[in-house]
């Protein structure tokens, strides 16, 4: 019986007793009060004050109490009128070619009354595949669309209300945090929107410290904001909040030193030592390994770091009890000395073996008393010690990828170690920089179940691939300096009647809907699939709440709560009108990755195609009143076949072309761990014509004018030899220069005289003082800064070696053994009309 009870199950302090309030209180705040816009960010609003004498603000309560029943006619009428018929307009995909919106695809807006929708959770944080929830499971089955949520709970937010209060108001039975979608029955009682239990409002909650008013609990920030952060009192801590602890485990075998990654890592770490999240208690440590494990004694007072070598890898032990993981502010000079000398220390090494398993065990022993983050750099297959792996990939099998083998782990060592780490609040992040097969499907387990992230830089070499070096440097900088939460747990709750049955993402599911996240970072996305256990009759809306309890890097225990409210509908056309095509695609991608591992790749591909066929067939038979020829889809799902085709041609699922097993497995990891926005960039890259950028429709952000060219379809017919195009694929960008591109563009933007003079490995746009150059650079910079990973830019022309990869992203075109978009549509139509 190792793991402790969840802190979220601790009962809160007793609620205040009833007092007789004379004020007449409205039943549903949404009915009568105009909700002001979101409160500006304020800090440390203390709620534990003695209540001032009960002076009821009678002028607020002159309206008669409106029952919750009044909500239903307004919602019912809304679902018929304000639901835009635009979303259900039938589009014949075979005829309409320009389906992409000019800019980004906007998320659908749920069909709620305006005042509820204004305070609803932002779609950047919380998105549902169906913005109108079906009333029964049979209705959901008829629609043939998956029901699930996509979460990005720890996203970097510009505006986040933070509340300090001695007791946090939660429902007594289901422990839901109070949120904007609860119902206040009168001044003293509130009804939970997830379990419908009536709770008492505690005395301190009646006083609103922001406005100084008493008796208006619905105006408190917890009830006005769908995304809010609480500073948690001590009941939410099982142990004193841990300090930030960072341990770096570095591979120093001959192969690793050859690639030269140590220079980049040590340099970046030296530069970022000041910006590592943490306070004066921050701890840091280093372990290097090849066939032995090397520890570094960084005790304050030593003149230089002392290396201690442990060669017994079958029974790993820590050579000294402390001073291997030291306080950063006290031992700073030693750490800097070590980082400066580390790359040269192993310059002449001839060790080729790699004992990754024992090194991980040693690192775990070192970090387990406190918990923290372990960063592992590995450049080859681990060959000795426990957890050694064999090369499983056969290069001859790559070309015939009808049935890809070895997608599941070879050993359970890494999974077991990840679970041990998760129990001690240690997260493991893996940076894989190998050129040969390194069994990422087994190694990735160490991150997958300990809430870490996997980064892959195939064929990393400091001289042979400078773009990879740039990418590692920028990614590492972001990785080291971004916000981090320690010893976190997350719970996703839904209204009674809905239940969650599958989870996708990097975490360990400790018990039903309690996710154990030793580290939580702003670039991790999660997804859950739900089913409707009981019919949602008598419910107008359902709510979902994601509560993330974590320790900030400064040692404060905080709870971030997001609440989403969605309407319930009972007609199939309403369900289709509220479908969110990007969320559906992302959820299907995660489901397909699971299917690849449990069944096979071809099963997963068939399942993806069937998802498209079934949903369009259901639309055609149930919703369309007039049967027209052609392939008809509702306007909100018009991009669905295109996205499914993009997934089928994605590196994770493609059968054409030979892709290395590690790259395929990494693509699958990305599909499961990326938040929605970045996932869609990778699945369906954006293509823009950039040789004639104008300021028409440009964005003006902080005195920069950023041109907004129209997004084009990914087809070669949109490319033209007289122009230049930019393709944005998330982690990489291609600037394709046509053969007859205007010489003005070549000189003013690229700084070369003719097309033939464009260098083959150009990665930077020269900073020339021309209007075109500044416009293009502004556009590229704007695209780049809106994502956490660094996008490498490649300038390519017809003879470039990267042209093949550029052309592979042309999803709508025919390629060897893969259908073109039009052929795919014909195939769908044929299957639907069977």
């Amino acid at each position, binding site marked *: 019986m190792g793991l402790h009870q969840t802190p979220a199950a601790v009962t809160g302090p007793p609620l205040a007793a009833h007092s007789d309030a004379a004020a007449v209180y409205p039943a549903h705040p949404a009915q009568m009060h105009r909700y002001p816009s979101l409160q500006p960010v304020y800090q440390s609003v203390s709620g534990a004050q003695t209540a001032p004498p009960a002076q009821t603000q009678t002028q607020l309560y002159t309206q008669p109490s409106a029952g919750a029943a009044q909500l239903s006619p307004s919602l019912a009428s809304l679902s018929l009128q304000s639901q835009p018929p635009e979303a259900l307009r039938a589009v014949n995909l075979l005829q309409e070619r320009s389906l992409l919106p000019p800019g980004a695809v906007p998320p659908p807006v749920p069909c709620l009354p305006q005042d509820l929708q204004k305070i609803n959770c932002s779609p950047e944080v919380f998105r549902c595949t169906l913005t109108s929830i079906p009333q029964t499971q049979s209705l959901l089955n008829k629609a043939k669309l998956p029901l699930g949520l996509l979460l990005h709970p720890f996203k970097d937010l510009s505006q986040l209300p933070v509340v300090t209060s001695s007791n946090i108001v939660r429902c007594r039975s289901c422990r839901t945090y109070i949120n904007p979608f609860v119902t206040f029955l009168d001044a003293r009682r509130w009804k939970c929107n997830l379990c419908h239990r009536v709770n008492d409002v505690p005395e301190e909650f009646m006083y609103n410290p922001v406005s100084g008013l008493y008796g208006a609990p619905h105006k408190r920030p917890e009830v006005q904001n769908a995304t809010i952060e609480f500073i948690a009192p001590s009941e939410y801590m099982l142990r004193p909040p841990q300090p930030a602890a960072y341990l770096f485990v570095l591979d120093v075998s001959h192969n690793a030193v050859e690639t030269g990654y140590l220079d980049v890592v040590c340099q970046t770490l030296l530069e970022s030592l000041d910006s590592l999240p943490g306070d004066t208690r921050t701890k840091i440590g280093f372990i290097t390994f090849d066939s032995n494990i090397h520890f570094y004694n960084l005790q304050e007072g030593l003149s230089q770091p002392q290396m201690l070598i442990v060669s017994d890898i079958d029974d790993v032990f820590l050579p000294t009890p402390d001073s291997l993981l030291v306080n950063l502010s006290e031992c700073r000079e030693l750490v800097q000395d070590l980082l400066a000398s580390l790359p040269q220390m192993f310059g002449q090494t001839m060790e080729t073996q790699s004992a990754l398993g024992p090194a991980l065990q040693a690192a775990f022993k070192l970090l387990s008393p406190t918990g923290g983050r372990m960063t592992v750099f590995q450049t080859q297959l681990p060959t000795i010690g426990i957890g050694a792996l064999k090369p499983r990939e056969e290069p001859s099998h790559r070309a015939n990828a009808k049935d890809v083998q070895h997608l599941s782990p*070879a050993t359970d060592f890494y*999974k077991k170690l990840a679970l041990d780490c998760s129990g001690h609040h240690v997260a493991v992040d893996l940076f894989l920089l190998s050129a040969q097969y390194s069994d990422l499907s*087994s190694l990735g387990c160490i991150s997958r179940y300990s809430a870490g992230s996997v980064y892959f830089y195939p064929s990393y070499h400091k001289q042979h691939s400078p773009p990879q070096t740039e990418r590692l440097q920028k990614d590492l900088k972001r990785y080291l300096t971004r916000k981090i939460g320690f010893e976190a747990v997350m719970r996703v709750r839904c209204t009674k009647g809905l239940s969650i049955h599958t989870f996708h993402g990097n975490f360990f599911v400790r018990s039903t809907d*309690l996710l154990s996240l030793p580290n939580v970072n702003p670039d991790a996305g999660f997804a859950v699939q739900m089913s409707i256990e009981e019919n949602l009759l008598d419910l107008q809306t359902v709510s979902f709440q994601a509560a993330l309890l974590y320790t900030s890097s400064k040692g404060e225990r905080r709870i971030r709560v997001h609440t989403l409210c969605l309407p319930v509908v009972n007609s199939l056309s309403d369900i289709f009108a509220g479908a969110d095509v990007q969320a559906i695609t992302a959820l299907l991608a995660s489901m397909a990755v699971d299917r690849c591992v449990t069944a096979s790749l071809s099963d997963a591909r068939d399942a993806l195609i069937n998802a498209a066929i079934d949903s369009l067939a259901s639309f055609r038979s149930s919703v369309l009143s007039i049967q027209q020829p052609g392939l008809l889809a509702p306007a909100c799902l018009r991009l669905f076949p295109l996205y499914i085709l993009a997934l089928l041609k994605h590196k994770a699922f493609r059968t054409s072309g030979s892709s290395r097993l590690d790259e395929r497995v990494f693509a699958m990891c990305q599909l499961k761990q990326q938040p929605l926005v970045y996932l869609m960039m990778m699945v369906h890259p954006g293509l823009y014509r950039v040789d004639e950028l104008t300021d028409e429709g440009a964005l003006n952000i902080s005195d920069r004018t950023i041109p907004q060219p129209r997004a084009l379809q990914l087809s070669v017919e949109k490319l033209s030899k007289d122009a230049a195009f930019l393709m944005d694929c998330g982690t990489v960008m291609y600037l394709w220069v046509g053969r007859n591109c205007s010489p003005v563009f070549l000189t003013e933007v690229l700084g070369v005289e003719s097309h033939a003079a464009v260098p083959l490995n150009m990665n930077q746009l020269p900073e020339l003082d021309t209007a075109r150059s500044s416009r293009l650079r502004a556009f590229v910079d704007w695209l780049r800064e809106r994502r956490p990973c660094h996008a490498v830019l490649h300038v390519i022309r017809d003879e470039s070696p990267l042209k093949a990869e550029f052309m592979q992203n042309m999803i709508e075109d025919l390629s060897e053994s893969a259908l073109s978009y039009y052929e795919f549509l014909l195939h769908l139509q044929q299957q639907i009309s069977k």
Partner: protein
Amino acid sequence: MEAAVFISSLVDCCALIFLSVYFIITLSDLECDYINARSCCSKLNKWVVPEMVAQALATVLMLVSMHWFVFLLNLPVASWDAYRYVKVPMGNMGVYDPTEIHNRGQLKSHMKEAMIKLGFHLLCFFIYLYSMILALIND
């Protein structure tokens, strides 16, 4: 001789009943949050092989003593046990894997399986009891 066979299979069946009940209790503890996934799965994985051995023993006893009907009744369960044990993917930590048990409704399907086995073993218990009494009377 008959009686001895049936007495031993009766004892074997009792053991299997207790094991099924233990599985059901542990799985429902996990459902109600009394234990965590890791300890639940390690407890259950410990008893997977003993259960398989006990079920195989019962089947072989019936085969050896030439009670064909009961043998054919026991055979599907024994082969299902063996199939489940062999088909565990390489990366999983046994038949009950703590990282997968909350996904895709596996908890519910394991619970259902344990309930069905309990019902089956109870049925077998009464068959053996009846046969044992018959054998003892006829001796």
